[in-house]
């Protein structure tokens, strides 16, 4: 079963990168949105101002048309333009009313604008129409040139003009204000995005730095733990070698004495020397185990190894101790299983777990350790169980943490399990305590990445 393994050191830069990309997208979307908003704001302003300005322009034109039609009728002394005049006058009244209504309705946006009064001009125009229809052109000319009428007309034109000016100015001011708001928002947004980007870059840089540092520290801690364990083991091994050395020394002593005797027993010397050879092999195994443990894990690559052989060779270092403490070790691993692993690292985990077990159960009446391979639908698993009574619940969550140790000061580094856990995690597996077991049981879960493969 393949599990995806994400460490914090991978997740954090990923989140930060996603944030940065997200921020850039936000910036682009934001600028499009701003442009859109700007267009909408201008449209909104124009929706209020344009109809008024249009009507005012139409009104001025209509007033000019009225003057022109009246002048034309007087010049030609012909009332034939009376229809057009009436039409233009109606339109002008309508337009003026609309302007007044719009001004009133949009007084909030347009401000207080004066009401455009046309009633008196309309009265005059009615008289003009009467005079035109009666053909009284002379009276018409007089009335048209009257001071009162001229004043009213000028006043009307001025009001139209001043309204146009006021509305235009208002529109201009609003557009400028709108531009200012938008550019301020742009500026603020830019500053915020810039600051956040800088912050993210700083965090990303710091994080990279810190994770490099912690990787370095982890590497150093692992190396230190290995060296500390090696130191502990070297002390143990010195003692373990003493027994076989005593056998060699004693055997050689016996042989030397025997060959000095007259008619010495060849058979006895031969047997003894063979014992010496056997015992030298015992020591060789211990030294090999020590060498395997002290080797830099980097020098070992991931390769296929027989799981049984890896476990057996890992035990070589502890065999003397196991024998003298009377620990019954049983291994149940099919001989045809191969595992893809870094042998040095994997051995370190087994040595560490077995040594922990030995330390815990030594002194018990019948101490035992079982190393078994189990395969189920859940995946493959290498279990190391000992006769201990399990790990108390409150310790389980701590035992994989660095520097956690239940051993006395100077007896353990407290790094063994945390390093072992790290090694198995790097292999893509997991190292867990089986809390269901009545004995102390550690499971090395070997997912597919470890490739337990049956060989013929």
């Amino acid at each position, binding site marked *: 079963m393949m599990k995806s393994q994400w460490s914090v050191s991978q997740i954090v830069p990923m989140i930060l990168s996603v944030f940065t990309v997200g921020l850039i997208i936000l910036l682009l979307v934001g600028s499009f949105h701003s442009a859109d908003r700007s267009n909408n704001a201008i449209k909104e302003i124009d929706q209020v101002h344009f109809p008024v300005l249009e009507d005012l322009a139409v009104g001025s034109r209509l007033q000019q048309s009225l003057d022109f039609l009246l002048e034309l009728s007087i010049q030609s002394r012909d009332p034939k333009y009376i229809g057009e005049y009436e039409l233009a006058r109606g339109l002008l009244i309508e337009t003026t009313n609309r302007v007044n209504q719009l001004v009133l309705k949009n007084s909030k946006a347009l401000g207080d604008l004066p009401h455009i009064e046309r009633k008196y001009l309309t009265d005059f125009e009615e008289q003009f129409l009467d005079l035109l229809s009666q053909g009284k052109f002379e009276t018409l000319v007089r009335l048209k040139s009257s001071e009162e009428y001229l004043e009213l007309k000028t006043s009307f034109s001025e009001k139209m003009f001043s309204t146009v000016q006021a509305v235009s100015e208002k529109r201009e001011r609003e557009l400028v204000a709108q531009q200012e708001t938008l550019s301020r928002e742009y500026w603020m947004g830019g500053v915020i995005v810039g600051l956040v980007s800088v912050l993210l870059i700083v965090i990303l840089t710091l994080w990279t730095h810190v994770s490099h540092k912690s990787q370095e520290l982890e590497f150093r801690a692992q190396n230190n733990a290995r060296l500390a364990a090696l130191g502990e083991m070297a002390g143990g091994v010195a003692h373990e070698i*003493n027994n076989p050395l005593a056998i060699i020394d004693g*055997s050689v002593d016996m042989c030397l004495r025997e060959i000095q005797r007259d008619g010495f027993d060849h058979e006895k010397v031969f047997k003894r020397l063979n014992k010496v050879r056997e015992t030298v092999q015992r020591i060789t195994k211990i030294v090999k185990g020590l060498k395997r443990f002290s080797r830099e894990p980097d020098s070992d690559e991931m390769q296929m190894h027989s799981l049984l052989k890896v476990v057996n060779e890992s035990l070589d270092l502890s065999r003397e101790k196991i024998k003298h*403490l009377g620990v019954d070790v049983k291994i149940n691993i099919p001989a045809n299983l191969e595992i893809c692993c870094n042998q040095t690292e994997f051995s370190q985990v087994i040595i560490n777990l077995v040594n922990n077990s030995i330390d815990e159960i030594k002194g018990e009446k019948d101490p035992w350790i079982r190393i078994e391979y189990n395969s189920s639908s859940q995946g493959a698993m290498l279990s190391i169980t000992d006769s201990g009574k399990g790990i108390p619940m409150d310790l389980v969550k701590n035992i994989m943490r660095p520097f956690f140790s239940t051993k006395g000061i100077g007896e353990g580094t407290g790094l063994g399990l945390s390093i072992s856990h790290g090694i198995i995690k790097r292999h893509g597996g997991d190292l867990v305590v089986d809390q269901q077991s009545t004995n102390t049981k550690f499971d090395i879960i070997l997912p597919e990445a470890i490739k337990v493969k049956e060989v013929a």
Partner: protein
Amino acid sequence: MKKQLLVLDDEEEIVQILCDILSSECEFQVDGFSQAHEAIEALKTKNYAVIISDIQMPKMTGLEFLREIRTEHHILTPVVFLTGFADVQPEEIIEAGAYCVLNKPWDLGELISVLNKASNSPALGG
């Protein structure tokens, strides 16, 4: 009459070597055992002058063996411990009533001299 010497070590080779060397090199009649309970049985029936015992042994350690023969069987024979391990503090061993502790591999001259001294000393412990 030869003095009786008892050798106890879980490593049979060591028992064999000690029996061979000590019986040919000194005035001892040597009996060797690799199991503590067998040694205790022999101690109950025979009067030994000195006991050589390993410390680190499965089932019963040298110290347990010493305590048992002293307290349960009241055997006061001097015990010389021979060990390849140094897990146990010498003071603790002497306090438990041992004659002395020697290291493996042993120096034969030293071993023989210690055995001679021990066999001539009044019985210890109790």
